């Protein structure tokens, strides 16, 4: 059983980062700041990339960053540096002080967040795995070779990446916040392509890289690459669909980006109204940075502990996520969703989970009389943000289903579809979920069956 307690700060990087954050806050206060906050991130990240079934790019990075929020009354400045020697930190504080002396007051400044009675926030055991932290180039190459071997077995080529990262994050501020944690993350993704035009996709993300089965992902993508050969054209139109998890993560991310943010609501550009029904009763979405099923993090980039926020419950909007400034405007407390300052975009839910249903994958497909099974989306973008109308393409595995059975692959289609309308028409939710890294963060999502999806164009492959 995974412990959810918050231990004291552990991990060398987290401790070093917290000491540096404390030092920077002290320097800022000595330089005249009335409030100060330091965010320190120290990262070792590596990525092994393969294409045409060979490793072609293979990189590592050792990096550190200090982000200082320097406040003089309601005058707010932000300065950042990658130089952590004495000269670098002196220059950092000087630049911040100079900015603070030059700017106008932020009238509704709510102040830096306080401790809320908590002591130092430590890490979170479920957010760290030593195997990921110590993953070597040879380990990643072995994973790439396993994916490639699966491709070789069926005569297709593999294109993908295998990444591992270890990150120490610390936040300290003059209101008493002290928070530090060491996290790890990993991801393996692959597109397999057959000589006859087929493509398939598989992906996994995890805190503990040893839970990623490279060979299994390789076989999943390889089977789909073979199954999508000789795809036929299908006319655009409305079709019922089953969206695999790789496609569903785009829906949760896009809605998180467009609407589940307090700033979006405050500016009137969100579709969210508490109590408003936006989905079928089968749809429940939460943001929970402490759920070990996702990619956990104990606190946000303002050092505020992550709160579980119910975004949609049984299809009904419940709440949105807050950072300190948006919370102050609404007379609430931050929910722990702040991003690094300065942040004109507001808070985002970066640990979303959609509740699983009770429908096995086969039954999701069996429930389609005539429709499409979609593996994933490509290059999606909002056309009308408030209605959550999004356009994008299908990619790496689109199949026609008739009478509940897959009858064959179809060429990729363009859709122009309101993601809100799609949620309202969910008729079944998958029993299994995948942990994936979307464009907002780590997400845990099931597959969905939706009784209408609007395809507006087609392409040649």
């Amino acid at each position: 059983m995974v412990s959810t307690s918050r231990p004291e700060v552990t991990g060398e990087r987290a401790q070093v980062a917290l000491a540096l954050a404390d030092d920077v806050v002290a320097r800022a206060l000595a330089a005249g700041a009335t409030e100060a906050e330091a965010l320190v991130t120290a990262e070792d990240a590596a990525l092994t990339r393969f294409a045409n079934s060979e490793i072609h790019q293979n990189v590592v990075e050792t990096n550190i960053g200090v982000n200082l929020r320097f406040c003089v009354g309601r005058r707010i400045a932000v300065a950042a540096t990658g130089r952590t020697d004495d000269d670098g930190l002196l220059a950092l504080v000087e630049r911040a002080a100079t900015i603070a002396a030059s700017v106008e007051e932020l009238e509704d400044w709510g102040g830096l967040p306080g401790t809320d009675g908590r002591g130092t926030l430590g890490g979170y055991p479920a957010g760290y795995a030593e195997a990921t932290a110590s993953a070597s180039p040879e380990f990643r190459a072995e994973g790439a070779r396993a994916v490639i071997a699966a491709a070789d077995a069926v005569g297709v080529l593999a294109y993908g990446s295998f990444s591992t990262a270890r990150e120490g994050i610390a936040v300290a501020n003059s209101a008493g916040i002290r928070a530090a944690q060491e996290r790890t993350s990993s991801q393996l993704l692959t597109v397999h392509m057959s000589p006859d035009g087929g493509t398939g996709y598989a992906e996994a993300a995890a805190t503990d890289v040893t839970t990623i089965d490279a060979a299994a992902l390789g076989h999943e993508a390889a089977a789909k690459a073979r199954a999508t050969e000789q795809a036929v054209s299908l006319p655009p139109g409305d079709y019922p669909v089953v969206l695999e998890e790789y496609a569903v993560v785009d829906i949760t991310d896009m809605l998180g980006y467009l609407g589940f943010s307090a700033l979006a609501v405050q500016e009137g550009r969100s579709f969210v109204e508490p109590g408003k029904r936006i989905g079928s009763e089968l749809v429940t979405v939460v943001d929970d940075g402490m759920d070990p099923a996702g990619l956990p993090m104990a606190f946000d980039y303002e050092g505020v502990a992550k709160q579980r926020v119910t975004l949609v419950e049984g299809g009904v909007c419940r709440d949105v996520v807050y950072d300190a400034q948006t919370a102050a405007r609404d007379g609430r407390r931050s929910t722990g969703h702040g991003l690094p300052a300065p942040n004109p975009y507001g808070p985002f839910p970066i640990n979303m989970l959609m509740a699983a249903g009770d429908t096995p994958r086969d039954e999701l497909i069996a429930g389609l009389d005539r429709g499409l099974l979609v593996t994933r989306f490509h290059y999606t973008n909002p056309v009308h943000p408030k209605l959550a109308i999004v356009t994008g393409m299908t990619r790496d595995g689109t199949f026609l289903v008739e009478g509940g059975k897959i009858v064959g692959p179809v060429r990729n289609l363009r859709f122009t579809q309101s993601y809100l309308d799609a949620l309202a028409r969910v008729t079944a939710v998958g029993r299994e979920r995948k942990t994936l890294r979307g464009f907002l963060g780590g997400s845990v999502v099931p597959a969905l069956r939706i009784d209408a999806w609007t395809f507006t164009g087609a392409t040649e492959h």
Partner: protein
Amino acid sequence: MRDLTERALDTAAHLGAAYADVRIVRRQEESIAVKSGRLEGVASGESEGFGVRVLVDGAWGFASSHRLDLGEAEHMAGLAARIARASATALRHRVALDDRPPARGSYTTPAEEDPFAIPLERKIGDLLAADRVAGAVEGVTFTESSYGAQREWRTFAATDGSFTEQEITHLGAAVEANAIEGDEHQRRSYPDAGGGWGAGGYEFIRGLDLLGNAGPRAEEAVALLTATQCPAGRTTVILDPSQLYNQVHESCGHPSELDRVFGTEASYAGTSFLTTDKLDEGFRYGSDLVTIVADATSAGGMGTFGWDDEGVAAQAVPLVRDGIFVGYQTSRETAPRIGRGSGGAMRADGWNRIPLIRMTNINLQPVGGMSLDEIVADTDDGLYLSTNRSWSIDDRRLNFQFATEVAYEIKGGRKGRLFKNPTYTGITYEFWRACDAIGDASSYVMLGTPNCGKGEPSQVAHVGHGVSGARFRNVQVGVGKW
């Protein structure tokens, strides 16, 4: 700097590297964000570090660090060599690079007024003034305005004796008005939502005239709330430069990157329909009017430099000439595979990223005959589409769909009423073959984007696009259900 580059290169060579290069990059950034007449954030940032790229046993390895000392140079060179050997355990073709003379010299972006030397108060004042003009328009719900500047000092050295130093400065600004009523959210921005960006000094910002354009754009945002929905159907469209540059970016810039053609971006952004057989056969990409060049020497472009990030001198490479596909954006590794030398398109996002083939300035050449206004006057019926709102294109860069902030109806050679939520879609080569007018040099402007994403781990590039506006026939508009 030389002691660090020499230590890294010597170490790499000692460990068996057939080739190695090292880049030291220091980046300085400044940003100002304003919302609804209120200063929302001012930030100043700097970072520095170095990256070592080595070729060992025919395979690549790369390691980078923020610690600029000789011990770390040795450590990173050693780590890069170890990584390259790990790469070699899954290698099918040894990397071979083209020949090029060692690169030596320096380059600095021409600039009249150093944006980092301009007092912060003045820059804030300029932005606030424009934002407040937009916000004063009745019906505007909120405004957002931004300013940003970035300067990089780049030192490049390689085992072939290359050593270059460059100082590159880019900057941009934007003002944006939003009008919201019920479910309708309309936006008009100037020069566009991502900001008008270019290479140069603060004179570039003054040249934008944010103050003079903020009010009219805000009035359009409000007017769009009650405008008619853009009708669906096939019609003639004229793309304003503020949209045309995006069309060039997505449907010509990306598909002509040779690494995509060879599949090395397949796992992320995809591949390209412009396969090498199309180069051999003289594929018709567009109409006879269409000539597109990747030009790293264009004045004011964000893809302008002295050398790319593997030491290849800036040059102009034809991609499409008189409608025929004639060339790719290439690197030292990819170009020999099509029998050519590198076109100098390798660019890295800072010290901690490897160079990839990235757009420089992808320019649609102007065509003599008609200015953009004269093209409008020459059009009986159609839509004039301005300022990108969203973009999407398939993984081989064929099926695209764009939305713009506004469409103006064209009747009898005149721009008339507004349509809201305009979209258009097509297949890349069919669309460019239907181009029957391109603006002349008087309408030509250098635009670009500071947010071009590519690669894993992700990289963001600043790229330029010179365009003058163009007309396309029989285009599908008004996509989707509204």
